[in-house]
């Protein structure tokens, strides 16, 4: 039974078979990788992916990366949260009136707390959802041939291409300090 389950887990972990077309260069030095990204982009290569154990600002600049859009998702969530929180209190107060000392049913100061906490709750949840959606997580298959060394100390540059172009990219990477270059597909 456990053996069968184990095989199932292995199969799950292996994931679906992927068919990659492109060149993967493995770098150790950050400046080498940055140079390579710059040159590749200058030569007009599109859809580059860089894999690294930590984010590097130099590489981000070389990639011309814009800032994440997740803030708009978070903002929308927060807006929904604050309106939702206030609406809930007002609706509840009106639909089940509990008159205390003849005071108004809709008393804003205490509702601010509920509105505020709801805002943070929904903004937090939508921040998570936004991040997962934009980062394409959870994912079962990487966009490029993944190497466990990318979570240790190596940087991987993936260029989707094929044929003659792939050979050119391979040469460029080798001349640019790559420790290892592999052509896929």
């Amino acid at each position, binding site marked *: 039974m456990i053996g069968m389950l184990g095989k199932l887990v292995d199969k799950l972990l292996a994931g679906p078979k992927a068919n990659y077309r492109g060149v993967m260069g493995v770098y150790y*030095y950050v400046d080498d990788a940055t140079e390579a990204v710059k040159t590749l982009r200058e030569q007009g290569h599109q859809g580059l992916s860089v*894999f690294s154990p930590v984010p590097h600002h130099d590489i981000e600049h070389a990639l011309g990366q814009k800032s994440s859009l997740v803030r708009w998702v978070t903002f929308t969530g927060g807006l929904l949260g604050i309106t939702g929180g206030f609406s809930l209190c007002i609706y509840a107060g009106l639909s089940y009136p509990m008159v205390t000392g003849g005071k108004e049913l809709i008393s804003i100061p205490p509702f601010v707390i509920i509105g505020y906490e709801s805002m943070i709750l929904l*903004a937090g949840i939508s921040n998570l959802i936004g991040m997962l959606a*934009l*980062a394409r997580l959870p994912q079962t298959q990487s966009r490029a041939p*993944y190497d466990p060394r*990318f979570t240790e100390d190596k940087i991987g540059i993936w260029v989707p291409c094929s044929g003659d172009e792939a050979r050119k990219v391979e040469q460029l990477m080798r001349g640019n300090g790559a420790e290892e270059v592999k052509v896929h597909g």
Partner: protein
Amino acid sequence: MSSDEAKKLSHAATADAGPVITQKSLNDDVLRMISKPGRLWWIIFIIDLMILAVGLIAERNQILYGIGVAGHTRPVMWASYVANFVFWVGIAHCGTLVSAILFLFRSHFRRAVYRVAEAMTVFGVLTAGLFPLLHTGRPWFAYWLFPYPNQRQLWPNFRSPLEWDVFAVTTYLTVSSIFFLVGIIPDAAVARDRTNNRWLKLIYTVFSMGWTGSNNQWKNFYGAYLYFAALATPLVLSVHSVVSWDFAMSQVPGWHSTIFAPYFVAGAIFSGVAMVINLLIPIRKAFKLEHIVTVDHIEKLSKLVLLTSSIVGYSYLCEFFSAWYGPSKVERDLFWWRATGHFAWAFWIMFTCNVIIPLSLWFKPVRRNMGLLFVLCLSFNVGMYFERFVIIVTSLAHPFNPSTWDVNYRMSWTEGAILAGSFAWFFMFFLIFVRLLPAFSIAEIKETLTAPMRRKPS
């Protein structure tokens, strides 16, 4: 912080760092913690479960025989359970402070300590959340606290501080859990790529969600992380303020005070940071991680303890001053009774542990002596437990009506067992955490290392 200072705090350049840390050695050092547990871990874990079992038996009795098995007696109808709740919420505060507020302030020392603090937050809220439910006596009706549509159109009273508490604590639990789990994603990927055990690999694959460290993932990860920090910062301050308003919104002498919100927040951070130090000192020793969590890091945390203890001390004195200077005779009488009456012992334990003993942290050798600091931080948490006890029990035992001043509240063994069980419950999660997930943020500590460059930076 200037770049020189940042360098001084980074691991690569710390004087007492011991061996030089590389990206690879960091992976190995942190992942060594999550290898197979040794005998000591099992002994501690089993003792912990035994204490938890005693707590569960006590809770079983309380469910079977009713809330009367606890020592609550009129007028002290809130006692140890509410004190436990406030204590654990307080413990839970440090995590978000260290991970969110210090992140926004770009304090580099947080990187080595924040994961432990965040885990403590999540487990602290999980523990705190039990107490209002146990205190109701009928925890299976806990869902009544939440607003949900029902046929009779019954809604909770949103004007009640107790309902604010439900919203604040639930939000805090949700947001801090998300923050904790999101932070683990890149580190779980490191563990996933290094383990040979298929079951562990499955667990880490789930936690890492298929993380590969691509530029798109990092971009959105840090984009979201900043907002988590920005959201968690006002949240952490609001949660303990709301907890303090459970008391301050009433008119009971000793509770009816505007200083409560900042006073509680400072107290929460004081006890939370002390608890983090208490957890970090044994962990760094047991797993030989003194070069990752350095004495400098612990010293920085102890300075936070010193700062917050002085705010707490100021608040204690301010309360007495307001009582003396203010017009209310009842308030004045209560404060005099607090320091000299039936529960004076609890008051003086509180005052000594939270105000007098922390003064020793002004001295650098004390802050850098790990053994001594451990004992001091234990005493701060004892003091903070008594603070909650003093605020809740003495105020209720000495209300407006002198005919109710016969103090007959005594903590029953049931309450004692449940308190012990709550510590066991917290440490059960923590013990599993240090053995299952990376207890130090590999990705963030890697950022403090000097990036490998072929050419010298210009």
